[in-house]
């Protein structure tokens, strides 16, 4: 069976790749494009470790067939920072020790980035609901929620 050619934009760069019809976008991003920040946890859309932005909407890459990426604009965790300059959210995760083993962290960073884009001042409840699709088995979530709140406060101050 011939493979399918897909053209899309990933982290700001035009990208072409070949994929199988039943290949997942998650595996393609990792194996073809080397974007290993995106993780596979469950592979069924429950854990959020493979969270990406596709056309500015938060998605699980494991729930997307690779050919569906045609013509889309994708951001993975690798595309959040500007070179070595981390985003306030990433800095707050580091400062607040909002991670332990780190497997879930890329997904949390992408999901929280999506939240803060449309809600710059979320309540704790809003943060917890927005991150309900991301599972962490280490932190108990508290430090993650606090890091998101702190990042939101810093970003509001910076834009004021």
């Amino acid at each position, binding site marked *: *069976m011939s493979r*399918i050619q897909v053209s899309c934009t990933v982290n700001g760069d035009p990208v072409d790749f070949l994929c*199988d*019809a*039943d290949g*997942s976008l998650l595996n393609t991003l990792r194996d073809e494009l080397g974007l290993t920040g995106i993780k596979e946890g469950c*592979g*069924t*859309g*429950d854990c*959020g470790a493979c*969270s990406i932005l*596709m056309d500015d*909407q*938060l*998605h*699980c890459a*494991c*729930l*997307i*067939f690779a*050919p*569906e990426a*045609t013509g889309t604009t994708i951001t993975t965790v690798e595309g959040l920072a500007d070179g070595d300059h981390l985003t306030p959210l990433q800095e707050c995760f580091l400062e607040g020790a909002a991670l332990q083993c780190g497997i879930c962290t890329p997904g949390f960073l992408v*999901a929280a980035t*999506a*939240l803060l884009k449309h809600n710059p001042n979320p309540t704790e409840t809003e943060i917890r*609901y*927005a991150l*309900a*699709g*991301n599972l962490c088995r280490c932190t108990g979530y508290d430090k993650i929620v606090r890091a998101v709140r702190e990042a939101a406060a810093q970003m509001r101050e910076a834009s004021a």
Partner: protein
Amino acid sequence: MKYFAPSTVEEAAGLLAQPNTKVFAGATDVIPQIRAGRPEPEALVDLKKIDRLVSVQRTDAKWVIGAATPTARLTGNAELAAEFPGLVEAAGLIGSDQVQSRSSLGGNLCNASPAADSVPAMVVNGVRAVIATPGGGTRTLAVEDVPAGPGRTNLVPGEFVVELEVDRAPARTGDAYLRLIPRTEMDIAVVGAGVRVTLDESGTVTDARVALGAVAPTVVRVQAAEAALIGSKLDDAALAAAAAAASAACNPIDDKRGTIAYRTHVAGVLTRRAAVIAGQRAAEKNGASR
């Protein structure tokens, strides 16, 4: 497996005429099913590149929602949420924000889970499924007539749902959907209850619809509960009678999420609570046409 992304309904219908070819919208069920060992079809037809299937339109007479429209676009539609808050809340309960970018009313309906959250809410609002047929035409089925059992629908091979349409809500009409899950988020309904009521100017119920999810092989419309509400002012006696009728209509399974007795009881409790919310919403629309 082959992957097709047609841009018209006609093209999709033509592809579906091939053997062992299936449609998908968000794939939030299809991909986990294949991962769990279900055989892959020969080909999958992606419906999301057909404009008509990813759109929300309102006319004076009705709303038309493309079957593959992501539910995130429904929860983000203030006018739709104001007119059908219960329907939009039910759609918004499907999975996480990540899943909301993919899940759709058409997919939730045709995956045919008895616990599908949007289905009781669609039933109480009289939502109709417009179905593309292999001959190139369409037919229309009430949403409650689409599921045939867990994982099965009354669509014949080659058919797929194109859009869901719902008449504009009459004056003094409110809907509500409540579900019970063991966690706060990200779980499957133990029981779901949808209620819609229409009031007259004195606050008496002139029309009512009650539908339950996760308590039988398909969504259940409970006409005895509707009869208990109609003519009442949603007083205690009417609410208790509706709750009892809802419990009596249950034919649930026993599983780790809930026993038969528990589901049966909760169906009554949620019906009562949803009726109260629907009544309050209807009263708040007093005088306003919509």
